[in-house]
């Protein structure tokens, strides 16, 4: 019967809001106030939500696990975290956020990857207007900044992939002996990380005049597509291929299997993301290096920033810009340190201090 009780309680509260809203509507009070724009100092018990692409990708699973770990650190069950899954659709991403803002009357602490950079602005605007708090990761346009929204746009974290990708590329090119052909399998071509990771490889190639970039094809972050593209590369370039640069771990799996089908076991490969499976492969020396971006911590801290800003633990507008826009951590995983890394980060997930917002970060975001 408890759900009935819960319903009645909810009913009483929301009826008040409902009447209030109707009164605004009937009275024709200024439109902006009707649509939100609620100013409030702090929210005592905000809904905490994570909005992300999908659950079929290990990367996002790690993000979610971090979000849940943060929730549990608050002494709440992990079901308390609301999940908004956009399935790769910016349209659904935006609609879901707005629906949730309505449902919670703006009492929301939102962590989000907006799926496509242009989608960030409408989302941030909607959250700010409703009086909620939002922290974003990865996708945002360069002209959108947290400090332009007072407290409501808490922070943006991204990872500068160009540098780390360049470093893994160097590991790869060295393993190739500094000569021969290399192929790159990228993410969805227009995604920012995909562009940066390819750029990292190109930067490294400048120092290796004897290495030729044979081809760079998008594999859409997809294992099966990567598998097929690699097969075709083998036909086109055959033995010319001396190394493979993958934009992420899921692509690397497909590449490994395509090579395995041909009986090629010793091809130098580097990837990105540092998923547990990839770390295992690094330990086995099937992959030479990957870059761990600590999505578990990223997922937790992004939710924590939004939450603590919402309950008033800190006031974002009083923080320096470097605390509003910053780079996330990047840890190299190579065969030498893979075992230690695995023990520290994967076999036992570290207990992070979710109030140490900026400890592991990598400095303020710089725009080109």
């Amino acid at each position: 019967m408890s759900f009935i009780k819960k319903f009645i309680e909810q009913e009483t509260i929301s009826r008040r809001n409902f009447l209030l809203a109707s009164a605004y509507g009937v009275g024709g009070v200024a439109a902006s106030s009707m649509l939100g724009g609620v100013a409030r100092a702090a929210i005592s018990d905000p809904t905490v939500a994570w909005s992300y692409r999908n659950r079929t990708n290990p990367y996002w699973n790690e993000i979610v696990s971090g979000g849940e770990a943060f929730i549990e650190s608050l002494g709440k069950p992990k079901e308390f975290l609301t999940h908004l899954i956009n399935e790769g659709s910016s349209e659904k991403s935006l609609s879901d956020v707005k629906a949730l803002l309505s449902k919670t009357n703006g009492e929301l602490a939102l962590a989000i990857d907006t799926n496509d950079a242009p989608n960030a602005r409408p989302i941030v605007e909607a959250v700010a207007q409703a009086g909620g708090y939002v922290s974003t990761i990865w996708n945002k346009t360069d002209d959108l900044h947290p400090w332009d929204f007072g407290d409501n746009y808490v922070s943006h974290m991204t990872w500068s992939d160009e540098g780390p990708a360049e470093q893994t590329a160097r590991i790869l090119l060295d393993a190739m002996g500094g000569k021969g052909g290399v192929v790159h399998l990228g993410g969805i071509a227009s995604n920012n990380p995909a562009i940066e990771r390819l750029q990292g490889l190109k930067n490294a190639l400048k120092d290796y005049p004897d290495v030729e970039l044979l081809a760079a094809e998008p594999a859409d972050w997809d294992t099966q597509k990567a598998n097929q593209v690699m097969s075709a590369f083998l036909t086109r370039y055959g033995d010319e291929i001396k190394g493979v640069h993958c934009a992420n771990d899921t692509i690397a799996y497909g590449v490994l299997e395509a090579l395995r089908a041909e009986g090629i076991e010793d091809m130098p490969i580097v990837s990105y993301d540092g998923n547990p499976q990839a770390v295992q492969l690094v330990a086995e020396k099937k992959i030479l290096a990957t870059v761990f971006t600590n999505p578990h911590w990223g997922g937790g801290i992004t939710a924590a920033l939004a939450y603590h800003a919402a309950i008033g633990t800190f006031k974002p507008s009083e923080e320096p810009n470097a605390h509003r826009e910053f780079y996330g951590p990047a840890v190299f995983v190579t065969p030498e340190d893979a075992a230690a890394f695995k023990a520290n980060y994967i076999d036992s997930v570290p207990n992070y201090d979710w109030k140490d917002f900026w400890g592991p970060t990598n400095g303020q975001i710089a725009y080109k």
Partner: protein
Amino acid sequence: MGSVLTRNVLIKWAPLIVLIVLVLFFAAMEPRFFSLRNFARIGISSAPALMVAIGVTFIIIMGSIDLSMEGTVSVCAVVFAFAFIAMGGTLASFAWLALPLALLVGAVVGLVNGMVHVWLKIPSFMASLAMGFVGTGFALLLTGGDRVRVQDELFRSLLTERWFGFPIMCYVALLFLLIGWFIQTRTTLGRNFYAVGGGEELAHASGLNVNRVRILGFMLAGVFYAVGALLAVGRIGIAETATGSNFMFVSITSVVVGGTALWGGIGGVWNTLIGVLIVNVINNGMVVIGLPGYVQDGVLGLLVILAVVLSTDRKSVTFVK
């Protein structure tokens, strides 16, 4: 009479001719395309797609359509992987039971799909589209988004072991192609698909239990999707919710390119084989000749239109929707 005969013969062999022309074209552009090892690569990428396409071929022959394959493939792959690992994780143990289990799961999903379509009288396009969501959703529920690795060397010999240059999975696909051919030509059910596609009301009036044929058709398709799922897992060693992604449009395109008409009654599994090969040759060939990634979707589209125009007997219809 002579001219009619040659036209019929031409129509019958047109898809194969298109395939051969494509192979020769890509071989001319890049001689390395024309090698046994590359054909094996095309075979590997074709094998799972062929299974899925054969499944949907039966449905299309009935004049219906099935869009549930992505969900069904994912569910079968995930259930297989879980069962396989739970029962020992190698084919040498009782874990081989996971193989028939996967086929059974495919049949059950197909059965439900068919029942929703037939009993609730929902057109197959809508019923199967919705069932596809349910399937993918169910696979997600099972995995919670995780990937399940299947590393058993024996099972992976589908990919790694080769006979005459082709991995075992190609022979498995061939075996099921023959089974599909057998069902199509030598069983009542197979022939009844053509009857339903040729004239559903007439078939019903002849005493044929059309609803039963339809439901069985969706069930059979489910079994073939399951085989496709097994080969897809065999190919990359991972079962996940995304295992079924991208199968829908590719398989239906392949079926149509092979000369099976979307309005039912015409075509068969050999057409589908040719169709799948055409699509995979194009996909492989475009990368092999070094076409930039961003034009590949467009070129594939144009070539598919060209292939359908050349390989379908469209004179038999007055209009197309």
